[in-house]
C-alpha cells in the first residue's frame, strides 16, 4: 500500500526573510527581495542586483571556527534545517535516527568558496586555504546537516540545478515509500556566486531591472539565494507523536523535454506531461487544483511555454486557477528555488492565502491567465502544485494537499 506522507516541518532562509513567519509575511505583502549585490564584486556587470540574503547574523548561529569552514551555502542550509527540525518538534521528540535520512537538491553549492580559492590560485596570490575546497562537492551541505543531526538513514544529493530541490522532495518521498525511513529532510540550499551569475547573464536571461514574470515587459530573472527545507514524515509516524502537520505531500511527476540544452519545448508539451504525471501519481485531478506555484522565471520562453502547458492541462478552467510567480519576490534561487517555493506552496494550502506575482503591470497576449498580480488573495485551497523546470528540459511538478487524516 502507498504510504501517506505529510509535511511536519519547514525552514527558510531567503532575501525576504530568514525564518518561516518573516518569509510568509513578505510573500503575502509582495515585498521585493532584490538589492545591490554584496556577496561578490558585481560592479563590472550590467545588472548589479540580486535577491541576496541579508541580516542573517551568522555569528549568532555559528562559532568562529565553524565559519571558517562553512560555505555561504552550508550556512543557509544549516540555519533553515534547524528551523525546520524545531518546527517539526523533532528536537524534543525521540525518533529512530536510523530511519531518518536526508536528500537535498544542489545548484552551485559552495562554489563561492571554491571561486575564492581558484581566483587567488590562478592569480598567484599566495597559497589559498584548502578548507575553501571542502565545498567542491555538491554533497557537502547535505553531509553537514546529517553530521550535525546524527541522521543515519538514506542520504543523497540531486543535481539538476533549477529543479534540484523540487526533485529532492520527490526522492525523499520515495525513500519513505520504499520503507527505508519514516522521516526525511528535503529541499535545498544555494548561494550567489559569480559563476552562475555571469553564466545566466551571458545567456541574456537576467533582467537588468525588476523580475516581472508573465508581464509583457519581462526580460528575465533576478538571481536569488537561500534555503528551503521541508521535513517529510510518514503519516502514521507523525500522528503517533502528535506532530504539527502543515500539509500532505501527495506525489510528484518528473520528465524531460529532450528538446534543447537551455530552452524549453515551446508548445508546453513537456509542462503538460509533467503536471499530468504528477496529478496522476498524486491520485488527484486538474479539477481539484486550486492554485499553481509557477516556475515563472520571467524569461520570454519559459513564461509562454508554462502558460501553454497549464492551458493544455486545465482547459477552460485554466483562467480560474490563480497562479503565483514568487521568483518576482525571492528571485531565482537555483538549487534552492524548488525548496523555497515548496515551503510557500505548503503554507498556501495551510493558510488559504495565495502570494502574488509582483511587478506585474502590462499583460502579454501570450500569457493570458490569472497570475495573482501584485496582491495576495484569500482562497480555500484543496490541492496546490509547484512547478520547476531546469536546463535541458528537466521538468518536475510537486503536489501538496490540505491535510485531513481521513483519506
Amino acid at each position: 500500500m502507498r504510504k501517506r506522507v505529510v509535511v511536519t516541518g519547514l525552514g527558510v532562509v531567503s532575501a525576504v526573510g530568514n525564518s518561516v513567519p518573516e518569509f510568509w509575511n513578505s510573500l503575502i505583502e509582495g515585498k521585493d527581495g532584490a538589492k545591490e549585490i554584496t556577496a561578490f564584486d558585481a560592479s563590472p556587470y550590467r545588472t548589479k542586483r540580486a535577491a541576496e540574503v541579508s541580516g542573517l547574523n551568522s555569528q549568532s548561529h555559528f562559532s568562529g571556527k565553524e565559519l571558517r569552514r562553512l560555505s555561504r551555502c552550508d550556512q543557509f542550509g544549516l540555519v533553515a534545517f534547524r528551523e525546520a527540525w524545531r518546527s517539526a518538534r523533532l528536537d524534543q521528540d525521540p525518533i529512530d535516527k536510523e530511519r531518518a535520512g536526508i536528500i537535498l537538491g544542489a545548484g552551485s553549492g559552495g562554489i563561492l568558496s571554491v571561486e575564492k580559492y581558484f581566483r587567488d590560485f590562478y592569480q598567484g596570490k599566495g597559497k589559498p586555504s584548502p578548507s575553501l575546497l571542502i565545498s567542491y562537492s555538491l554533497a557537502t551541505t547535505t553531509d553537514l546537516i546529517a553530521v550535525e543531526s546524527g541522521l543515519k538513514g538514506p542520504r543523497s544529493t540531486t543535481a539538476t540545478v533549477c529543479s534540484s530541490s523540487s526533485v529532492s522532495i520527490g526522492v525523499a518521498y520515495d525513500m519513505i515509500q520504499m520503507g527505508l525511513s519514516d522521516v526525511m529532510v528535503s529541499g535545498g540550499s544555494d548561494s550567489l556566486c559569480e559563476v552562475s551569475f555571469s553564466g545566466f547573464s551571458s545567456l541574456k536571461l537576467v533582467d537588468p531591472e525588476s523580475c516581472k514574470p508573465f508581464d509583457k515587459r519581462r526580460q528575465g530573472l533576478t538571481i536569488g539565494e537561500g534555503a528551503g527545507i521541508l521535513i517529510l514524515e510518514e503519516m502514521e509516524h507523525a500522528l503517533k507523536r502528535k506532530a504539527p502537520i502543515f500539509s500532505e505531500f501527495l506525489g510528484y511527476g518528473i520528465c524531460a523535454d529532450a528538446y534543447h540544452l537551455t530552452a524549453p519545448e515551446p508548445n508546453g508539451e513537456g509542462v503538460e506531461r509533467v503536471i499530468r504525471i504528477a496529478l496522476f501519481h498524486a491520485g488527484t485531478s486538474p479539477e481539484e487544483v486550486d492554485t499553481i506555484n509557477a516556475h515563472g522565471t520571467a524569461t520570454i520562453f519559459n513564461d509562454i511555454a508554462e502558460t501553454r502547458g497549464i492551458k493544455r492541462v486545465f482547459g477552460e478552467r485554466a483562467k480560474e486557477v490563480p497562479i503565483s510567480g514568487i521568483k518576482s519576490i525571492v528571485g531565482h534561487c537555483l538549487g534552492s528555488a524548488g525548496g523555497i517555493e515548496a515551503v510557500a506552496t505548503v503554507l498556501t494550502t495551510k493558510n488559504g492565502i495565495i502570494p502574488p506575482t509582483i511587478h506585474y503591470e502590462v499583460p502579454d497576449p501570450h500569457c493570458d491567465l490569472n497570475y495573482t498580480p501584485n496582491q495576495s488573495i484569500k482562497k480555500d485551497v484543496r490541492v496546490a502544485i509547484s512547478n520547476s523546470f531546469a536546463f535541458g528540459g528537466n521538468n518536475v511538478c510537486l503536489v501538496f494537499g490540505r491535510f485531513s487524516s481521513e483519506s
Partner: protein
Amino acid sequence: MDKKMKNSFLNQTPNSEHRTPNSPEEPRIVITGLGILSSIGVGREEFWKNCLLGVPGIKPILRFDVSSSRSKMGGQLPEIDFKTFIKPANLRRMDRIGKVMVSAVKMAIDDSGLDLSKEDPHRIGISIGTGLGSSDTVDQFFRGLLKDGPVGAQPLLFQTAVPNAITSHCAIEYGIKGVNITFSHKETSTEMAMAYACHLLREGKADVILTGGGDELSEPLYHVYSRLGALSPGKEKGFEGMRPFDRDRNGIVLGEGSGILVLERLEHAEKRGVKIYAEIAGVGLSGSTDGVLRYDQKGNSLAKAMSQAAQDPSIVDYISGAANSTLDLDRVEAVAIRKVFREKAKEISVSSLKSMIGEFDGSGGVRACGVALSLYQGIIPPTIGTEHLDPDCDFNVVLGQSKKREIRSALLNSCSNGGSNISLWLKRYV
C-alpha cells in the same frame, strides 16, 4: 503527440502497487545492456578482457599539467574517436565528459538490442550519477571570467557546465522523454542513481531506465584532491598507486570513465527476447555521521546497507568492494563485511575493481557493469597491486588473477567520504 501516445506516459503496469522495495514478489528488475568507457578498455569486450587479465589502467598523467602536485598518476581514458558513437554535428554542443556519457549510453542501448523507434519515448527514463560532472568546463568558464570579466563569460560553456548537462545531452541525443534525474553525492552518486531507477521501474513509472554514470579526470579536480591530501603521495613519500586492502596502502589514485546499464522489468525484457546479464534484487541505503570528510568509522552504516540489500545473505558469493586504498575505508569495509557475514565472511570472494581503474565518484557505473559480467560468466576479476594483505582486511580477497567460481549473488558496495553508504544486491539471472 498522436492520439495513441496521448496518455501513454500515465500507463501503469499491473504490478505498480506500492510495496516494500525488497520483497520477493516485487517485479524483478534485470540488466539487459552495458556500455563502458574505462581506462582499461572502451566497450564491454575490451573492458572485460582486460579486467579479467588484471591490466592496470593507472599511468602517469599526460592530458594536463600535474607539476604542482606531488602525485603524478591517474587512470585516464584513452584517446577516443567519438565520431564512432555520436553524429559529428551533435558533438559540437558537448564537452568531453558529455561525449563520454553519450557514448556509454549509445553502447548500452546497442548492447541491449533496444529499438528506440519501437519504444514509447515517454516510458524510457535516464537516471545518472556524477560527482563533479563537467568540472573541466566549469574551470574553463571561470578562467574566461577571470581573464576578461563579464565579457569573458562564454554562454556555450555555461550551458554545458551545469551538473545535469551530461544527462540532458543523453536525453536530447536519443529523445528520452521519461524520468530524467542527476544525482551528485561523491562516491555514492551512481549507486543512488541505480537504486532510484530500480524503485521507479518497480512502481511502473517507466519501462526502461538507462542508469549508472561517470566522471572525468580534470586538472582542477586533480588539484583539489591533491590539496585536500587525498591522493596516494608519490615517490618522495613512498609508493604511488592503488593497493586496496594492503597493509601499506596510502591513498587514492584518481580515475575516470563511465558505465551505463539498461534496466527493465523482467517481463519487458522477456517480451523483447534479449539476453539478461543479471538481476538487481535489492538496495540498501544508509548514512554515517562521523564528519564531512570522513568515511563510516565503525562499519555499522555500511553493514546496515548490505543487510538491507541482501535479503538472503547465505547466497552472497562475491562482494565488489568500495575499498579504495585509503587507510579508513578498506579497514571499515572489512569490519562491515564481518559484522554482516560473521563466519561466512571467509567464503565470500572480495575484489576491488578500483585497483585497476582508480577511484572516482562516478565509478559505480563501471563497477556495476563488472558485477553484472561476473554474474553472467561466473568469474571474478582480481584486485591488483596488493601484495601484503592488511591483517585487519584478512578475508578472501581475489589477488593477482581472476577467479572462476559459482556466483549466486553479489553485493556492490559504495561509501562516500562524508557518510552516504549504499549497497546493491545483484543476483545471477535464472
